[in-house]
């Protein structure tokens, strides 16, 4: 232990590099943030650089005034929680199943699964299938298609295979069934990877808007990201109007101000930042469990 407390040159370099990279990652975010709370006039002229000036919160007030935000936040929250639970459970379970060499046709089915990562049928066939499955204007469209995710299953399988097989075998000899082994033996061992998958899925669910764009027309099922995305992208339609030579004098009013666009990004990211530390505990915890057992 004593050895580890000595500060070496390596430590200094290591800390410095991490500090610099962290700064490089944090600064743009900080920069965007201080611009959202500084005077829009100064901000649009590029005069807000290192610290906020003439602080105000009008941009946030404007964003919170966008109609339907409350219901949309609820839907986003629901799809994130439900979707993440389903995906994590399925990934853990399937990863475990595919780690069993005894499974009938394992190799084939595993490849059957993984191959799907590399092809894409295109928008319209996908849409028509979703429609046929009754997933139009249906909350399930947010959570069901993502349940089986090949990438996560690969991660879990790799992880399970790196854990000692002896634990599973001895449990099997004790007469434990597959489900019991999965719940009692495997699950605690793979917590870190499940936590990772949970983060990945939760962020993906929280940020996704494409499914809403194509599959939902009922405003009760709009997600936060979708509403913000619509707002964010006002400029695209403006370009379309212009291409066609529209003669509306108020064209420029359609443009969403940069300040609002930035604020929208902040509104999306800040909840993630608040939840993220909660997940980090799992990485530390994993070590603790192992340590106690050791």
């Amino acid at each position, binding site marked *: 232990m004593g050895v580890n407390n000595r500060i070496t040159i390596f430590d200094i370099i290591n800390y410095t590099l991490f500090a610099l990279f962290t700064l490089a990652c944090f600064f743009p975010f900080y920069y965007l943030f201080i611009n959202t709370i500084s005077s829009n006039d100064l901000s649009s002229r*590029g005069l807000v650089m290192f610290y906020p000036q003439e602080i105000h919160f009008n941009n946030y007030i404007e964003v919170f005034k966008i109609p339907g935000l409350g219901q949309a936040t609820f839907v986003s929250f*629901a799809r994130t929680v439900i979707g993440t639970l389903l995906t994590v459970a399925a990934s853990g379970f399937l990863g475990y199943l595919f780690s069993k060499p005894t499974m009938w046709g394992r190799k084939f089915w595993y490849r059957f699964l993984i191959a799907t990562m590399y092809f894409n049928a295109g928008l*319209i066939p996908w849409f028509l299938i979703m429609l046929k499955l009754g997933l139009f204007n249906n*909350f399930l469209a947010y959570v069901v298609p993502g349940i089986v995710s090949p990438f996560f299953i690969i991660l879990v399988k790799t992880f399970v295979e790196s854990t000692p097989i002896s634990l599973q075998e001895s449990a099997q000899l004790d007469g434990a069934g597959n489900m019991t082994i999965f719940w009692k033996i495997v699950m605690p061992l793979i917590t870190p990877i499940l936590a990772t998958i949970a983060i990945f899925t939760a962020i993906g669910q929280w940020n996704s808007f494409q499914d809403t764009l*194509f599959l939902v027309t009922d405003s009760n099922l709009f997600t936060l990201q979708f509403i913000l995305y619509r707002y964010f992208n006002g400029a695209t339609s403006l*370009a379309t109007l212009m291409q066609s030579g529209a003669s509306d004098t108020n064209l*420029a009013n359609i443009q969403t101000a*940069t300040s609002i666009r930035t604020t929208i990004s902040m509104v999306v990211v800040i909840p993630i930042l608040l939840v993220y530390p909660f997940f980090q505990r799992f990485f530390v915890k994993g070590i603790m469990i192992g340590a106690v057992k050791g």
Partner: protein
Amino acid sequence: MTKRKKWTTAAFAIIAMFVFLSACSGSAGSNSGSNKGNNAGTEVSTDPSQQSEITLNVFSNLANYAGEQPGWFAKLVKDKFNIKLNIISGGQQKASTMMAAGDLGDIAVAIDIKDAIKAGLLLDWNKDGLLDKYGPALKEYAGESLEANSKQYGGGTAVYAVGNNIGSGDGPSEGAKMTYGPMLRWDLYQQLGSPEIKTLEDYLAVIKQMQELSPKSDSGKPVYGFSLWSDWDGVMSVNVKAMGQFYGFNEGDGFNIAELMMTKADEAKWQGVLDEDSYYMRGLKFFFEANKMGLLDPDSLTQKFPDVVNKYTDGQVLFAQFPWLTDGYNTEDRLSAGKGFAFVPFTEEKVFSSGYNPYGGTWHWVIGAKTKHPERVMQFMNWLYSPEGVQEATAGPKGLTWDIVDGKPTLTEFGYQAVSNSVDMPAEYGGGKFSDGGNKINNSTLTTSMINPETGEPYDYTMWSSYLNNKPDPVTKSWREAMGAVTMKDYVVKNNKVAVQPPYFSEQAKAEEPSDIKQKKAEVGKVIKEYSWKMMFAKDDNEFASLKEAMVTKAKGLGYDDVIKFQVDNYEKTVGAALKK
């Protein structure tokens, strides 16, 4: 034990949420059918507002908004028809999925009607005498458009669509400000003694002098003559194209698919964009010269449109191709201090303008074949095309934002504040800003510069005499005195500086673009865009010339001539032939 309890609670909460959401989506799934109770809308009362409440799904390729129509426009529609509008916002890909699904909702706007008809997705308005019974205003004010659409797409018997932006009469159909400028900083131009500008290239010297007068913007940043952006470019640079539009040439011909050529508004003349003497090439040269003189913003290549808007707002740019670019700079404060942009034409100018078109534009309004309420949809559409509907959709609810004063339509005190978005609308009109509560379908019906037969003035409130004479600011005043006209439109008409494109009608629909032409056009367009920008920023005349040669060679290699031939053939057969007569 406590842990288990916690888990149980959590599980319950999640199940409850699930049930709630499924219930929610269940009702949503049957959204369009949620009015089964009212006999599928067959009972149509003579007073439309007395009918049961329904929600219409409106798919608009032009909408920026998704969800229920908010604000004052929603109230108008609810009060008059007991209808709620659920706006489904578009986008090319979204439109494709709806077409593929075979259901366009109750109303759709700006879709490809030819394919939609072929796929049987549109309602025939003549079925059951729908149009005759519920569409009197449509027939009165959009009759020619209905007839034209019927001939083009309905075999002369069925009516599937009505065009947008319908109008009739002579002269430009635009509002008080036209679509294309150019606008200059009027205060600086006056300081220079309003030098005469004969031809496009003459602007360069004038702008150079203006830049010397005002080298720094309000926040101390460098001032440029021109600041361009590339993120709107289709098959060519939007900003360069504008130079042709000053000369009366526009991309395409307004009827056919013809994006690689520019045609003259009022004469049977066309140019391929890569022709040696085309206005597009001249525009490239113009910006190249501007760059040599230090007048072109070096960020033009990399910035996006919002950055350009910011630069105009800060006063970093002196020339505006499009009048609406100047809204950010022409604030009340600056205008009352005598600073602002105004229209400064050149002698040769013949600005491109669309004439009134009784057949309407191509952003059609259609009714979905699967609608459950054809009668009520028709009633609502009829109102959108009636003078009353157009007037209220443009200027807001009568009695609130405007009224008739001394026999003339006039914005109320509140109206003036509301249309500049400086006050919120009253709570009973949904609150929010005036612009937030407007029609979110975002498509026109009748041209708003037309005269409203009920008021004797245009629908567009910015063209009302009361509005024009309401405390003009010093810039406007000075401009009116110097130019001898009230508005930009007034000036170009009086001085014959406008090329008005006459409406075109053919019983035949436009020719379909063969698949190989479509792909060649995309490849060629990419080359033209890329080299256009390189040419504007070329280091010297030699580089400019060699880039130009490379552009032409490459574009031709990728099939430029084939595309032009296809486009010209169509033009000569249709619009071109009509203009020759």
